[in-house]
C-alpha cells in the first residue's frame, strides 16, 4: 500500500492529519485520504470481497439477520395461512403495521436515489464514496417495502389483481385509486433504481472478474460484467447511460414518495387529507434515508477499512443534509398543526389535538424528539465528527420516521368522524415480529452485498484522485481532487471542459 505523495494537496492533507473536513477556501478538500492511489483504491475495495473470510462481526451480523429473516418467513406464512386477523388491525384501523412498514421502507430508499441521481446531476462529487452503498440500500429497502402491500391484503394470493394484466374476465384495475398509482410509482422506482445500481456497477464487477482467481467467480462476475473491457467506447456508452438514468431517476425521488403520500392525502380522513403531504413525505423520506445510510456506513467503514474512501468529510456532508431535512420535517409538523387550527375544521383540529395530547401522545413525543430534536446536535462539528453520536442520530432518524408513519396511518384512523366508531389500535406479537423480520431481510441482503459486490464505486472514486487529472503542469488542477467522472481536459485548449471556477 505504499503510495507516493506527489501532489501538494497530499502534503496539505498530511499536515491536517487526514482531516479533510476543513473548508480552506484555497483548496478543495480531498475526497480520498490516506494517500491512496488507483491501485490502492481497487485494493481496498476488492479486498473486502476477495479476502478468504469476512470479519467475525460479519458472521455475527449475518447470523442475527438470517434468524430474523427466518422469523419473517414464518410470520408471513402464518399470516397467509390464517388471515390478516393475526395482526392487530381492526374496524376503524384498516391499515396499521403493514402500511407503516411499507411507507417506512420506501422512504429509506430515497437517500440512495438522491445520492446517486440528484447529487450526480448537481456535481456533488463527494457522492462517489457512498453512492454504491446507498443505492444498494435503496434496492433492498424497496424489496422490503414491496413485501408489505402484497401480504397486507386480505387475500394475498390475489394481490396480482392490482397489476394491469389483461385477463379473460376483462377486468382492469381501478385507476382512480391511489393504491394503483402506488403500484406504478413503486414499480417504476424499483426498476429504475435497480438498473441504475447495476449499470453503475458494471465496470467494478469487471474489475472483480479480472481479479478473481476462482473459476466460479470469474464466470459469475463475467456474466454480470456484460463483457466490459474498459475501452473508450465502453466508457463513453457507460457514461451516457449513467447520465440518462440519473436524469430519469431524479424525478422519481420526488414522485415516489409523493405518490405514496397520496394514499393518505387523497383520502378524506382527518390527519390524512392534507395537501402538504407530498413535499413533507419526500423531505421525510430523504431524512430517513440519510439516517439509514449513516446507520449502515458508520459500522461498514469501520469493519471493511473504508475510512479513507468514505471519509469524515462524507460523514460531515451527510450529517448536514440530515439536519437540513430534519428541519424541513419539523417545519411540516408545525404547518400541519397550524393548518389544522387555522382551517376551522373541527374534525381536523381534533385529530391534531389528539395526536399531540391524546392516547398516543407518547408516540408523537418519540417521533418529535427523534426527528426534530435529536438531529439538532449535528449543529456541532464535534458531534458530526463523533461516529458514535452520528450512529445514534442515524438510529433516531429511523425510529422517528417509523413513528411518524405510525402517527399518521393508524393513529389518525383510531378517531375519525363518528365517535361511536372510535377504537384504539395495538399491534400483536405477529406485527412486531414481522417488523423485526423485515429488518432481517434488509440486513441479510445488505451483508451479502458487502461481501460479494463492490461496496464502493471504485471507477468513480478513482476519478476523484489527483492522478486522474494529472495532465502536465496545471498545479491548480493538481490540488483538486473533486473532479467529476466526466470532467476531462480538452487536449486542444488544455483547459478543463467544465471549468467553472
Amino acid at each position, binding site marked *: 500500500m505504499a503510495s507516493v505523495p506527489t501532489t501538494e494537496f497530499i502534503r496539505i492533507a498530511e499536515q491536517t492529519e487526514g482531516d479533510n473536513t476543513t473548508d480552506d477556501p484555497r483548496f478543495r478538500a480531498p475526497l480520498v485520504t490516506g494517500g491512496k492511489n488507483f491501485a490502492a483504491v481497487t485494493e481496498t475495495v476488492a479486498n473486502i470481497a476477495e479476502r478468504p473470510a469476512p470479519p467475525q462481526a460479519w458472521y455475527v451480523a449475518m447470523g442475527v439477520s438470517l434468524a430474523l429473516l427466518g422469523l419473517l418467513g414464518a410470520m408471513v406464512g402464518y399470516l397467509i395461512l390464517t388471515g390478516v386477523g393475526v395482526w392487530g388491525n381492526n374496524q376503524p384501523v384498516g391499515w396499521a403495521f403493514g402500511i407503516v412498514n411499507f411507507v417506512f421502507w420506501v422512504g429509506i430508499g430515497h437517500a440512495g436515489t438522491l445520492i446517486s441521481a440528484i447529487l450526480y446531476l448537481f456535481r456533488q462529487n463527494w457522492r462517489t464514496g457512498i453512492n454504491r452503498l446507498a443505492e444498494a440500500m435503496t434496492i433492498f429497502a424497496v424489496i422490503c417495502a414491496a413485501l408489505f402491500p402484497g401480504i397486507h391484503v386480505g387475500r394475498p394470493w390475489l394481490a396480482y389483481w392490482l397489476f394491469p394484466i389483461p385477463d379473460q374476465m376483462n377486468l382492469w384495475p381501478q385507476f382512480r*385509486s391511489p393504491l394503483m398509482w402506488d403500484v406504478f410509482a413503486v414499480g417504476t422506482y424499483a426498476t429504475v433504481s435497480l438498473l441504475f445500481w447495476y449499470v453503475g456497477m458494471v465496470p467494478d464487477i469487471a474489475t472483480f472478474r479480472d481479479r478473481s482467481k476462482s473459476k466460479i467467480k470469474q464466470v459469475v462476475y463475467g456474466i454480470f460484467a456484460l463483457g466490459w473491457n474498459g475501452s473508450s467506447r465502453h466508457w463513453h456508452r457507460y457514461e451516457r447511460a449513467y447520465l440518462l438514468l440519473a436524469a430519469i431517476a431524479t424525478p422519481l425521488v420526488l414522485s415516489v414518495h409523493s405518490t405514496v403520500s397520496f394514499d393518505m392525502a387523497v383520502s378524506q380522513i382527518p390527519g390524512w387529507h392534507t395537501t402538504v403531504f407530498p413535499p413533507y413525505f419526500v423531505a421525510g423520506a430523504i431524512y430517513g434515508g440519510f439516517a439509514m445510510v449513516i446507520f449502515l456506513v458508520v459500522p461498514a467503514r469501520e469493519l471493511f477499512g473504508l475510512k479513507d474512501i468514505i471519509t469524515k468529510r462524507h460523514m460531515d456532508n451527510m450529517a448536514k443534509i440530515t439536519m437540513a431535512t430534519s428541519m424541513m420535517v419539523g417545519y411540516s409538523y408545525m404547518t400541519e398543526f397550524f393548518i389544522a387550527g387555522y382551517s376551522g375544521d373541527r374534525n381536523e383540529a381534533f385529530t391534531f389535538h389528539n395526536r399531540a395530547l391524546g392516547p398516543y401522545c407518547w408516540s408523537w413525543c418519540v417521533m418529535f424528539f427523534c426527528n426534530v430534536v435529536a438531529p439538532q446536535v449535528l449543529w456541532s462539528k464535534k458531534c458530526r465528527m463523533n461516529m458514535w453520536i452520528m450512529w445514534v442520530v442515524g438510529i433516531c432518524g429511523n425510529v422517528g420516521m417509523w413513528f411518524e408513519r405510525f402517527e399518521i396511518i393508524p393513529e389518525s384512523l383510531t378517531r375519525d*368522524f363518528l365517535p*361511536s*366508531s372510535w377504537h384504539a389500535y395495538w399491534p400483536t406479537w405477529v406485527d412486531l415480529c414481522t417488523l423485526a423480520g423485515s429488518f432481517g431481510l434488509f440486513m441479510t441482503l445488505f451483508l451479502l452485498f458487502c461481501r460479494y459486490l463492490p461496496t464502493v464505486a471504485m471507477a468513480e472514486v478513482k476519478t476523484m484522485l489527483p492522478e486522474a487529472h494529472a495532465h502536465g503542469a496545471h498545479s491548480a488542477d493538481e490540488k483538486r481532487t473533486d473532479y467529476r467522472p466526466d470532467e476531462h481536459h480538452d487536449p486542444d485548449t488544455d483547459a478543463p471542459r467544465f471549468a467553472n471556477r
Partner: protein
Amino acid sequence: MKHHSAQREYWRSLEHLANTPEIQQSASAEFASYEPDGMLSMSSLTRRRFMKLMGASMALAGLSLNGCRRWPEAKLAPYTSTPPNRIPGIPEQYATMMELGGVGSPLLVTSYDGRPIKIEGNPTHPFSETVKGRSGAADAIAQASILEMYDPDRSKAVINRSGGNEIATDWDHFTSAMSSTIDSLTASPGSGLAILCEATASLTTTRLKAALAKRFPTAFYEYEALSRDNERVGIKSALGQPARQVLHLDKAAVVVLLDADPLGAHPAHVRYAGDWVKHRPNKEKETSRVYAIESAMTISGSVADCRMGVRPSRVGAILSAIAAQVGLAAAAASLTAEEEAFIKPLIADLSANSGKSLVAVGPHHPAEMHAMALAINDKIGAIGSTLTLLEEPNADRPHHFDSLADLTKKLKAKQIDTLVILGGNPAYDAPTDLDFAGALKNAKTSIHLSLYDNETSHACTWHVPRAHYLEAWGDARAWDGTVSICQPLIEPLYNGKSSDQMLAFFAGEPETESDAIVRKTFADIDDLAWRRVLNDGLVKDSGFKKVSATINSSAALPAAGGQSGYEVRFLQDSKLYDGRFATSGWLQELPDPLSKIVWDNAVLVSPRDAAGLGVGVGDMLKVTVGGASVEMPAFVLPGQPVGVIGLALGYGRTMGEHIGSDVGVNTYALRTTGAMYFTSAQVTATGAYYDLATTQDHHLFDQLGIQERQARVGEKHKSAEIIREATAAEYKRDPQLFQRNEEGGISLQLYEPPRRFNDPHAWGMAIDLSRCIGCHACVIACQAENNVPIVGRDNVLKSRQMHWIRIDRYFKGDAEDPNPEVVFQPVACQQCENAPCEEVCPVGATTHDTEGLNVMVYNRCVGTRYCSNNCPYKVRRFNYLDWHSQDPRHDKYPKPWLGLPDTQQIETVPMVERMMYNPEVTVRMRGVMEKCTFCIQRIHNTTIAKRARGEELKDGEIMTACQQSCPTQAIVFGDLNDANSKVSKWHQDKRAYSLLDADLNTKPRNRYLAKISNPNDEANG
C-alpha cells in the same frame, strides 16, 4: 372455374377456390391438424411427442392447483313425489308463534327448500304487524331463535342418568322404561305424578293436563325466573278477579312508567313500541310525553321525555305520592326535593290529560303497587280508554315463586317420586335458598325435557331432547289471548319431542305425533277453517274477554325497605332473557342496547358510585348479598340511579354448551326467595381488572376524547353535528329549525356526476331518530338475512364485530348528570352517491349500480381495506379471519395450534349450521370486505318478478330486513324516483338531514330525521 361446385358461393382462400385435393381433405376436417387418436396412439408416438404431451398435461394439472385435489363425494337425490306447492328455489312463508314466559310472539317464518332461514313478525297479527298485512316485526330474541333450532350443540339423544352414569338411548327406550312407572302410578297412585312446566297459555297443554289429571293424580307446578305474577296477583286483589291489562300507548298523551319497560321488556313490547310511536312526532297527533321513574336504565326510560333514576325502594313512595295527589286515599309518603320537583309537573300533566293518560308499574314490584297503579288508572280515566282489562286464564294458579317453593318443599319431604320437568332450567335459575338441584335428588325418577342437556338435565335421572318450536306443532296465545297455532317448518332435527307430546304420552293419549295432538284440541274447527287459521297464524276472535269490575282503591303499600347502602336490582337481560338463550351466538354477540356489552354481564353502577368506589369500567367489584357474593366487572352506566347496582340475570351458565358456558357471572347466586328483584348489598372493589368487550366506547376514553365526543354529539336536547334534535315545543315554534341550522354545505361539484343513479329506480332510505328505541331487532334481522357471522369476545375486544347495521348510542348531558338524554342512531351503509370507498378501491370491487346502490363485488375484493379507511361512517366490515369456521369462544377454549384453522373456509362449518344460510346471499370468505347492501337480494327478487309480470313497483313492496323488523317503523326504504313514496316524503321532511354530508359532500342516500323529544322543562332539572 369449372372445378367450382355449384353450391359453393364463398371461398376461404385462393387454394380453396382452386379446390385442390389437399384442401378438400383439410376442409372436410373441422380441426385440421387435430387428431386425438393419432396423438395418443402409442405406435406413432415419438419420444419427443410423448414428452410434449406429458409436459403439457402436467403443466395444466399444476396450473389449476386443483388437479390433485380430492373432491368430496356427494349424492343428489330428486324427489320421487314432489311435496305440494313446492317450487325449487322459491321460498315459502309460514305463520307460527314462539311462546316465551307464557306469551306468544306471532311470527312468519321463511323457508327455503324445506329449510327455515328467516323469522319475521306475522304481518296479519295485531301483536306484530307494523304495516297492515304487509310487514310484521319480531324482537331480536324471536328472530335469533332460528339459530337455536339449528344449533349443533342441542341434545340429540335421550340420556339416562338413573344408574349414576350417562347412557345415551332413544325415545322408544324411554317410553318402555316409563311404562312401568306409569303402570305403578295407575295401580297405586300414591302421591302421583308431579309436573313442572314453564309458563304457558297453550290450550293443548291445558287439555292434556286435564287428561293427565284424570288418569292419575297429578300435581302441576309452574315456574318462570322472570315472572309477571306480581302484576297478576295485584290486579286480582284490586279487582277481585284476575285480569290482564293491555296498554294502549297510541291513545296515551301522558304515560307514567314506574320501573315499567313496555317498549323493551314486556311480552307485548313489539306491539307497544308500535303503539307508542303513533303518538310521537307526526301530523295527526301531538307528541306524547313519557315520564319514567326507574331504578335501572331501560329502553323505555332511555326514550322517555322526562326521566328520573331512583332507588327501587323509592318507587313505592313515589307511586303513593302520585296516588295521593290524584285524589286517592293513599298515605302521602314523604318525598325528597328532587322527587317532589319531578312529580309536580307530572301530576299537572296527568290531570290535564284525564282519559288520555296512563300509569304503569314494572312487574318486579310487589302486588300492592300494581293494585295501587290500577286504582290510579281508574281515577285518571285510563281504564277503557288507554288501558283494557282482559280476563286471565288459570285464575287460581299460584304465584310462580310460590309454586316452585311448594314443589321444592315437597321434594325435600320426599313426597314426590316422579317429577317431569317440561323445559325450563330451575337447577340454574331457581332462588338459591331453595337448593332446587339438591331437592331434585330426592325424586326417584326425574325427567327433564329440554333443548339442551343443561344444568337441570344433569340433576335429573332422565334427559329427553325437546323439539324446538319450529320443529313441532303447538299452540300459544298472544298477550291479548288470541290463539295462534305453532306450525313446524321442519322435521325435528335431533329427534326431539314437544312438551305436548310428553304430556300426551303420560296422559296415555292415542295420538303421539304433535300435529294430531294439537289438531285434537281444535277439533271444533273444520278442515277448511283450520287451513285459514294456519294461513293467518291466528284464530279470529279467540282473545280474552274484557272484564268490567269495580276497582277497590283502598290499597296500601308495604313499608319501604332500607334506604342506605347499595341496593341490587336484578335485571331481565336484553338478549339472554333469563339465561335460556345463552347458547345463541347471535344473541351473545348482540350489543346490549345501553351498555353495548357483548358476551358478558357486568355490575352496572352510576358514575357517582363508581367514583365513590374508585372504579372504572372493567374494575372488578365484589357484590355481597347475605352470605353469597359474586365478583364481577363494573360498568359505569350514565343514567344508572345512584346507590343502585344493576345485575343482569342469565349469565354464568355452567352447562350452556360451547357458546353459553362460562360467559359472564351467574347472578342467580345472589337471588333468594325473599328478594327476587331487589335487595340490599355490600359492594367493594377487589382491585382486579377484566376487559369487558363492548361494541362502542371500548377502552375508556381519555378526557380529550370524551370532550370531543360530547361536542360532536351536542348538549342535552340540542342539535350538533352528528345528532340533530329539538324539543317538540321548539319545533312547533319554528318548523324550519333544522333547515336553517344546516351549515353552509358544499354543493359545488368539480364536474357533473356522470349519472344520477336513478335508472330505473333510485333507492333511498330514511331513519327517524324520534322513532328508534334502540331495541336491536334490526341487527339480528340483518344478521339472519345476510349471513353475517359472529366473531367472539376476543375479536370484539379488537373491534372486529361484523354487524352490518349498528345502533350508535350516545349519552347527552354532563358527566355528572344523573339523568342524561339517550339518543339511538342506527348506522348502516349510507349508500353515498359520492362514495369515498369506491374511489379508492384499486380493483374496482365496490362500485355504484345505476340505481344508486353502492355494491360490493365479493369475489373481486382482494382486501386492501382502503375502502373502510376512507369510509367516514365506518360501516364496512372486514373478514379478518375466517369467521364462519372460527370458534367464537377462542377467549375461553384453547385455539388450534397458533390459531391455524384445520381447514380453510366453510368446510369446517357443521352441515346443520350451513342449512341456515340464506342462499340468496354469498357467504363471505376471509380477506373480503363486506357491508350493508340495502338487501339487494330482496330488491332484485321483487323487481325481477314485477318486470316479468309487467307491473309497476308499488311503494313499500320492497322492505329491507332491518326495516321489516323495526317495531316502530323507524326505517323507511323505497324509490326516490317516486315522489309519493314514503321515503321521498321523509327525505323532503323538514327534519331530514344527511350525516356528515355538509363536511364531506358524500351525498348519502340515507337521511336521518331529527329527533323530537317532548321534555317538560319543569321536570327535567
